């Protein structure tokens, strides 16, 4: 092969790369392969926690993301909701971020998970009796601080419309009945695309069992909190979310047919069963397989570029 060919190969037009990326990621969506994975300790702890908490205690979900980081956070929230709804755990959700649409986005996700459950003939979660939305708190730090001090003051005066059409104070509803402080919640989960997780850790980690789900950019910063046990577990980025879905399907240390154990998490002593929500492998599974294709393309492109560069140099020298 001659120098011109290698020259072309090391200066491929960017548009060619873009088209290849679009085509490959589109094809990748249809593969939906279940990729075997070594589950992160943090996700294993998170899943075990979610499967072990008392279903009679409500869970509090803080969801601080908008459409622009939908790719990771929507998979996170969907996965969390599937676990909560399958385990029949009541929950309360709100957004503590200056990004105004966050609450609406979360409400939409709950709606479409409910539609999905309806289609599978499962019980639909009713607002007021099974879950409550509190709305938006624009100042994350202040909201967490006042929740730490007195939850009744922090959420005071918020009302919710029950399925029968009546308005009720949120603390009178079946969801929050008997809740007087953060300690009465079984778990708190922060789903976020920004540093709001830092405020939650600073203000609330000693009041309630705190966990988180965050984008790949935020997640590395959560590792120190997890190591210090300030976070009881977390799912970081798409990988963390795929870990969750994989465990929802296979459990932890759980022997399936033929005694095969898919997830062998060293830290978790004992067995955690799979979830069986009817749709355990969902968005993250689809995206994660696709991510491999995209990453392979990136690495392939870098390798080709380098090989071509060396080959061209060699060919040039040969020609001289």
């Amino acid at each position, binding site marked *: 092969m001659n120098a011109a060919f290698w020259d072309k190969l090391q200066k491929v037009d960017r*548009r060619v790369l*873009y088209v290849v*990326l*679009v085509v490959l*990621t*589109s094809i*990748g*969506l*249809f593969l*939906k392969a279940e990729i075997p994975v070594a589950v992160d300790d943090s996700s294993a702890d998170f899943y075990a926690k979610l499967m072990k908490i008392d279903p009679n205690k409500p869970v509090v979900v803080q969801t601080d993301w908008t459409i*622009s*980081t*939908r*790719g*990771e956070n*929507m998979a996170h929230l969907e996965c969390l909701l599937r676990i909560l709804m399958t385990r029949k755990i009541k929950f309360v959700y709100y957004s503590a971020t*200056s990004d*105004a649409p966050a609450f609406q986005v979360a409400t939409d996700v709950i709606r479409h998970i409910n539609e999905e459950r309806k289609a599978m003939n499962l019980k639909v979660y009713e607002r007021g009796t099974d879950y409550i939305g509190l709305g938006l708190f*624009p100042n994350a730090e202040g909201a967490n601080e006042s929740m730490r001090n007195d939850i009744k003051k922090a959420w*005071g*005066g918020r009302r919710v419309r029950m399925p029968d059409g009546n308005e009720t*104070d949120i603390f009178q509803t079946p969801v929050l009945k008997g809740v007087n402080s953060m300690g009465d919640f079984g778990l708190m989960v922060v789903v976020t695309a920004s540093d709001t997780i830092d405020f939650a850790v600073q203000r609330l980690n000693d009041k309630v069992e705190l966990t988180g789900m965050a*984008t*790949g*950019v935020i997640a*590395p910063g959560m590792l120190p909190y997890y190591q210090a046990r300030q976070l009881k577990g977390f799912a970081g*980025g*798409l*990988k963390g979310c795929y870990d969750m879905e994989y465990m929802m399907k296979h459990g932890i240390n759980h022997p399936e047919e033929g005694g095969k154990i898919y997830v062998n998490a*060293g830290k978790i*002593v004992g067995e955690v069963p799979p979830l069986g929500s009817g749709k355990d492998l969902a*968005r993250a599974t*689809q*995206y994660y397989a*696709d*991510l491999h294709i*995209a*990453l392979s393309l*990136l690495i392939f492109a870098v390798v080709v570029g380098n090989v071509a560069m060396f080959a061209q140099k060699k060919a040039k020298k040969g020609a001289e």
Partner: protein
Amino acid sequence: MDQYLFIKLSVGVFFTIGLYSVLYKENKFYRFCEHIFLGLAAGYSLVAIWTSILYDQWWLKMTGVPAEGTSKMVPGYFMYAVLLPIGLCGYMVMSKKHNWMSKIPIGVILGLWSGQQVKNWWTQYGAQIYGSMQPVIPTTWSSLSRPALYTFNEAGAKVPLSPDAAAVIRSNIYATQALSNFIFVVTLVTALSYFLFNFELKGKFLRSFNTVGRWLLMVGFGALFGSTVMARFALVIDRMSFIWNEWLKLGR
């Protein structure tokens, strides 16, 4: 309702493709989407500036909130009214004669920022300075590298160590860890030397110190680059899914 949702999705797909078209080249379709985007964004800013900043943080604090239901009365602080004339000074930038007055609100913003920097410097960096003082002398030579926290039983399966034995391992510094710590400190100091501006580094040794500092910075940057890739690719995959799965309802 379903019709509305389909229209809404289609609008989203239309603009997504429009903005993507710039990847090929700048064109009329992109220009169309870009200008709508800029218009909507400016419109949204004008709405959000009042509804989510000024109304809550300025107006309500100035006028107060009367008691209602279980929520208590919040007094109004009239001094917030001072901020409006200060803010208006900024608009003097349009005047040819009095444009200097625009520096008043700017001065207030910058003054507050400057004070905060000095006040917060130690809280931000003190812990990092302490965290860099890593011990480099091993506390034990019983093993060069840190032993695993498990052993093997007769059957060859992994068994965790007793908590006491594990605690001993955790409390020790092993030779390989000490070496890593030493690399850490050297990396920090060489990289820091790269940012000395007023000292001319003379001699081969000092100059090579500087060069190595720059290489080590590049290692750090490469790692940063690599770790954001997953998050970014997830977003483009999601866009594709938005088009194929949600809009065309294929591939679900």
